[in-house]
């Protein structure tokens, strides 16, 4: 480990009404990967935004490579060697890879852009990282994982020596994560200091040297990763002991509620057959792109089906659009909360009421405010949504609370089947447990729960039965208590043999 390259002391940052950072200390050395841990709202992103010049601090000192900076603009931070890869990837989709990499510091001759020179340099940097991307390709056409590689390449093209990665693995597959880690190790060997923010604690041991833990805007502790136990880390993050990371509730397996027969919808949903029973949670595991999300969308009537039948309590239901599914009592909490799950510019109240307007309106279509109040009150109470009032915009909630609102939309309807698609993505440990408890509660109430997740430990920890998909087909079905990660992974990689003829 090298010398200290970034040192932040007693950093204070206040937003209207909130003290986001309260005397936070942070230190980064060259050639190390520093994990910055804490629950959502702990202030990790805020701290890193100060370091990268997006926010200005209200107090404290910040030293980068021995030089003290009062306040930085994003451009000055770049010049100082700091680059940040944002959680929500920040790229211009309509521009090419090279254009994105050189955005804001284009090479020019006179006033004319030197496109071929920039493309050649971009190709060189991508080549150094052994990333196979054509610099002339449009960024919007690349998969998310490649876009992330481009962001890293962009950071390197400005000769960044301090690289901040905010949740870089949240939408990558296992193979892509390995690729990312390979690059991180290379950067580390080259003497870069890397700040790594992640909620996936399992992946830390692969790359992390030291950790800094924050909670509620305060610095809690730091230390060498190998000398700390996972329980210590979690306890420091949450501020309380989490007894069980995966609380499981045992239920009697009841009658069959829901059955899908020979469902087909495009290449990623092929001949899907499965059933859900009362009192069990069925996990859907698989690699990214295995067709799990597509299956949920086809069931829910978002995407058109090309064949298959769906049965609820033994009777066939025809689902051609989401409204058909909702009326039948089949509901979906989609993968992308902000895009598909919530109207982020509307209040919690309006979000909760939206799919239930048929219950809240009288015959003339006038919404009854008292019924709406009741619905919101129940949802907030039952789901423990943490918010001052239901008039708050959904966008202003933390990830965990947003997820609760997504679920809350459906609970007023006496649903029979609830489909969760990656419900815990990007939310913190404490909130995850609350979501698990919620699923357990549904299970106890006799509702069939379908639980799609890419995180193996939670599938094994929460689901009773696990169905594994690969390449649009169901390749395996196992009982969660009797299986191992390896067995699931084997099913998840069971691609059809391409016929060579």
């Amino acid at each position, binding site marked *: 480990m090298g010398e200290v390259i970034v040192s932040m002391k007693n950093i204070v940052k206040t937003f209207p009404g909130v003290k986001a950072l309260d005397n936070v200390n942070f230190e980064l050395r060259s050639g190390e990967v520093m994990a910055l841990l804490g629950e959502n709202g702990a202030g990790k992103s805020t701290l890193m935004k100060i370091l990268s010049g997006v926010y200005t601090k209200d107090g404290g000192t910040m030293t980068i490579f021995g030089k003290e900076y009062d306040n930085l603009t994003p451009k000055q931070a770049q010049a100082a060697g700091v680059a940040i890869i944002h959680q929500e990837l920040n790229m*211009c989709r309509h521009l090419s890879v090279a254009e994105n990499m050189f*955005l804001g510091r284009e090479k020019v001759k006179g006033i*004319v*852009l030197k496109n071929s020179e920039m493309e050649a340099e971009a190709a060189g940097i991508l080549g150094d990282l052994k990333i196979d991307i054509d610099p002339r390709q449009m960024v919007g056409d690349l998969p998310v994982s490649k876009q992330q590689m481009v962001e890293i390449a962009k950071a390197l093209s400005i000769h960044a020596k301090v690289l901040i990665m905010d949740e870089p693995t949240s939408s990558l597959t296992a193979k892509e994560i390995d690729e990312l880690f390979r690059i991180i190790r290379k950067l580390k060997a080259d003497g870069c200091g890397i700040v790594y923010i992640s909620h996936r604690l399992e992946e830390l041991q692969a790359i992390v040297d030291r950790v800094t833990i924050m909670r509620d805007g305060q610095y809690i502790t730091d230390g060498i990763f190998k000398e700390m136990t996972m329980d210590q880390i979690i306890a420091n993050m949450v501020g309380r002991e989490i007894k069980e990371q995966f609380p499981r509730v045992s239920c009697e397996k009841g009658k069959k509620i829901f059955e899908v027969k020979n469902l087909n919808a495009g290449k990623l949903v092929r001949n899907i057959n499965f059933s859900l029973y009362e009192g069990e949670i069925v996990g859907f595991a698989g690699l990214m792109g295995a067709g799990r999300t597509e299956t949920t969308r086809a069931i829910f009537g978002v995407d058109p089906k090309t064949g298959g039948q769906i049965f609820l309590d033994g009777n066939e239901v025809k689902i051609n659009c989401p409204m058909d599914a909702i009326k039948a009592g089949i509901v979906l909490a989609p993968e992308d909360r902000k895009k598909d799950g919530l109207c982020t510019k509307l209040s919690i109240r309006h979000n909760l009421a939206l799919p239930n307007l048929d219950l809240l309106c009288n015959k003339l279509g006038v919404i009854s405010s008292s019924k709406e109040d009741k619905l919101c009150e129940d949802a907030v109470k039952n789901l423990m949504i943490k918010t001052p009032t239901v008039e708050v915009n959904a966008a202003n909630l933390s990830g965990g609370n947003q997820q609760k609102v997504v679920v809350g939309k459906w609970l007023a309807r006496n649903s029979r089947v609830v489909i969760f698609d990656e419900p815990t993505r990007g939310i913190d440990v404490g909130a995850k447990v609350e979501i698990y408890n919620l699923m357990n509660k549904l299970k106890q109430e006799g509702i069939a729960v379908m639980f799609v997740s890419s995180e193996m430990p939670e599938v094994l920890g929460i689901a009773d039965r696990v169905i594994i998909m690969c390449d649009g087909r169901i390749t395996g079905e196992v009982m969660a208590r009797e299986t191992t990660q390896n067995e699931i992974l084997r099913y998840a990689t069971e691609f059809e043999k391409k016929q060579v003829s």
Partner: protein
Amino acid sequence: MNEKKQSTVKRLLNTRGMGAVITAFAGLIIIYVAFGLIDRNVFSGQNFMNLLRSMSKYLLIGVGQSYLLITGNIDLSIGSMVGMSAMISATMMAMGVNPVLAMAVAMACCLLCGVVNGFLVGEFKLPPFIATLGTMFVTRGVAYMVNNNRNTDAIATGIGKEAGDSFQNFFYYGKTLGVYNTFWIALLLFLAFFFLLSKTRTGRHIYAIGSNVDAAKLSGVNVVSTTIKAYLVSAICACVVGFILCAQAGMGNMEAGNMYEMYGVAAGVIGGISPLGGTGLLLGTFAGAAVWQTLENGLNMIGAQVGIQRLVIGIIVVFSVLLDVVVRSGNFGKKAGK
């Protein structure tokens, strides 16, 4: 050598938005030929020259509006700015002021409006629709006030017949190399702004803020100054169109340029410029302006009334965007099914 040439052509064809441009040019040829088959006079040299001249103002206004559409904004004030430019320059010339000075004053006023638009949208984050709606009314108001709510007298009454004629010839009636000056002026500005958009840093930044303004800002792009530059381009275009209308009429008309902002949107959109920002090529705007003018010209030649002209143009605008949407959603389908 041959290989290199091929790759340049291929690269040109692969440029984003080129598909829409080619479609628009294909549509243009079909429309032109179709009208020509109905009425052979459409193919006459004189008509072609008239066509080039009358498409020039739509081309200019389209270029201005396209700059804003690509940044994901809009400029509703350019039509009124055309009127303001025509009225200010005509009023001054009718009073006997040197035409160059009169034009300079008109240009200064338009540039000022451009800066104000850019500031309101870029710095104060006003929705561009609202900000430029305001300046639209203000500039039209100024156009009315310049000459006390009257159209101006003939400019020749102030600067004399000779100077008046030379102003009118320069912008409208005169020809150079057999083509009306109006078209040369429009072409020159088009080429300059084409270069600015496709070959310079400013142009790149205009695409970037239209594509993802946050990413652009975090990459160190100055969003405010880029926005102002885009609004300045539209102001310059509007101002020159004002001169053209002034030269055509030989006087200032308070209603000059009415609705032109929307003609600009139509020209851009027919040419494949996305009103959502980030994509589109000025070549498309060229095709869009030409489609528009060929339609108007052709419908005129075959004796169609204004009503039917508007109706057809309206359908064309919707149809061209619909085509774009359908083509794109087709692509999405393919991706999802992969």
